[in-house]
């Protein structure tokens, strides 16, 4: 305890130098915390949007669909699957989906379309596309209703209530099948891909285009919290244990591209953050080394009166550690302060990214980036900062431990 007190007091012999070093640690760590929290906010949006639009927390599909998403690889008996899931997971929203690719024709024009057939009521609770509708309304039981993007409406020169004919070849059909729709709503996400090529229709309309009644490409399960995924996956597997020819995946398995992209982004971000940590540690090394060199004579005296080299080294290491702990505590405070506006109002990148949304890993996310506190990663980096600053004191500590008392006492 006395050694710790000695280390702490030594640090403030040269208050200005220590404060400058503390500021470097604080600022460095604050930047690290800010970056981590901003990353976490972005990942959270990507995951949430990815789950709601591309998958679910749990996804049931025909066996092999993830690896080979052939439109003909459909899940038969989808309604029974949905019912079993609804029974096993009463708090979850169960949403079957069918994905079709074809041609959408207006009286004046045609465009390629990625048409998703879905349960309007269930999807209204999970798809944020509903909030992006600029004209008209979301889908209902009307099998002729279709919701299209703003750019597609422009390309087809259609407005609300106008007729569109979908044409495509699906399932076992040898000929093209078609379906008449009326534009029920027009959405704008800001993403050129989504606004220009995506459309949504009632599940039953899509099924009739497929020529089959009780099918889906996916039955998606949406939970109140992503943290419940593992438990829900187990319940789903138990509930569907007797259903042959299906695969049950978590969102991580169903959306490997997003998971991989986040891992890659996080790994490259970590490299930058570690480099920042090393630069800050150099500052700590300089402070502790200068402080140790200035006290060489004093160390000689301390060794003369019986202090062992390892005890002296411990004092130096503790100085680095105390500096690290103080800087880290201040860094947490400064990091949270810096993150707070990005949590409350977000950071608007729309001018740099050319719109209000951007496609990221196949998911359309907002160009206003919101931060989200990540206590675990903040904790890891804070601990890392303390370890780094303590390690930065290792060289001065070894230097001091190697001093001979008689030589050290001659030092001026």
């Amino acid at each position, binding site marked *: 305890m*006395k050694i710790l007190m*000695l280390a702490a007091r030594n640090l403030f012999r040269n208050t200005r130098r220590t404060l400058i070093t503390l500021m470097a640690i604080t600022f460095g760590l604050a930047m690290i915390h800010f970056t981590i929290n901003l990353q976490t906010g972005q990942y959270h949006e990507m995951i949430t949007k990815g789950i709601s639009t591309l998958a679910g927390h749990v996804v049931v599909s025909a066996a092999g669909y993830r690896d080979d998403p052939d439109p003909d690889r459909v899940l038969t008996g989808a309604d029974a699957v949905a019912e079993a899931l609804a029974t096993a997971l009463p708090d979850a929203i169960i949403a079957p989906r069918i994905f079709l690719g074809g041609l959408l024709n207006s009286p004046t024009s045609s465009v390629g379309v990625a048409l998703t057939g879905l349960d309007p009521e269930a999807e209204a609770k999970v798809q944020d596309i509903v909030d992006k509708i600029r004209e008209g309304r979301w889908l209902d039981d009307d099998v002729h209703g279709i919701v299209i993007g703003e750019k597609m409406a422009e390309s087809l020169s259609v407005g609300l209530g106008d007729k569109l004919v979908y044409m495509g070849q699906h399932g076992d059909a040898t000929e093209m099948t078609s379906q008449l729709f009326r534009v029920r709503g027009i959405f704008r996400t800001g993403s050129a891909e989504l606004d220009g090529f995506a459309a949504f229709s009632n599940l039953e309309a899509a099924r009739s285009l497929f020529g089959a009644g009780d099918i889906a490409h996916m039955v998606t399960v949406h939970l109140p919290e992503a943290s419940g995924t593992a438990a829900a996956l187990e319940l789903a597997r138990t509930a569907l244990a007797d259903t042959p020819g299906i695969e049950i995946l978590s969102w991580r398995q169903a959306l490997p591209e997003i998971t991989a992209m986040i891992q890659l982004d996080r790994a490259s971000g970590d490299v930058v953050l570690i480099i920042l940590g090393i630069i800050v540690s150099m500052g700590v090394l300089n402070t502790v080394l200068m402080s140790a060199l200035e006290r060489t004579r*004093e160390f000689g*005296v301390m060794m003369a*009166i*019986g*202090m062992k080299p390892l005890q002296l080294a411990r004092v130096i290491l503790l100085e680095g550690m105390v500096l690290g702990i103080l800087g880290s505590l201040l860094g947490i405070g400064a990091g949270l302060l810096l993150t707070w506006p990005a949590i409350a109002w977000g950071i608007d990148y729309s001018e740099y990214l050319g719109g209000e949304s951007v496609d990221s890993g196949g998911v359309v996310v907002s160009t206003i980036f919101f931060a989200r506190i990540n206590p675990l990663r903040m904790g890891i980096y804070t601990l890392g900062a303390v370890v780094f600053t303590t390690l930065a004191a290792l060289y001065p500590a070894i230097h001091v431990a190697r001093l001979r008392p008689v030589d050290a*006492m001659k030092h001026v």
Partner: protein
Amino acid sequence: MPIVTVRGLTREYQQGAVTVKALNGVDLEIEEGEFTALMGPSGSGKTTLLNQIGALDEPTSGTVVIDGKDLTTLSSAQLSDLRLQRLGFIFQSYNLIPVLSAFENAEFVLMLRGTDAAERRRRVMETLADVGLTGMEHRRPSELSGGQQQRVAVARAIAGRPALILADEPTANLDSTTGHELIALMKGLNEQHKVTFVFATHDPKVMEAARRVVELEDGKIARDTRK
């Protein structure tokens, strides 16, 4: 048995191409309770001999035996332990730890020894009273005069009740009155507690107080006078 036995001690330094013999075959015995002054001109080897007796430096040849232990056979950790348990040091420029108070400086050796807090407090308060620093326990070295700082250094040296105290020019930075007071203080401790003192000094006041004066010239003992 003498507390210090020095036999055939030499210490050579390399200064460029020249080999300097700071000590050249010194033989010396110091008995327990002695108050001995090592005298001699600058460069005669006083401090070098004191460093050898204090286990702070290794000899080129010869032996130093303290409490029956040959220092040349001890490891660095054992030497540290010997200094901690058996020796006390007083330096010319006090060499207190500036971030510690008078109490904490005097307590330092006891803390390194692992003495429990209550015992440390009792002994340090007693020692500070012995050196006339009662009421100044919480002052840092920068808040004390030179004489007071040297008293703290004496308190640090004696608080652990060492067998031998080595003092290198302890009065050199003090005015005459303060120097006299300090010598009287150390003499009193020597007589009262039978602590052995060995000084390296130029100061005639110390020589006057010493009961034995060992004069060094060119790294050899020229005269050894007992009063």
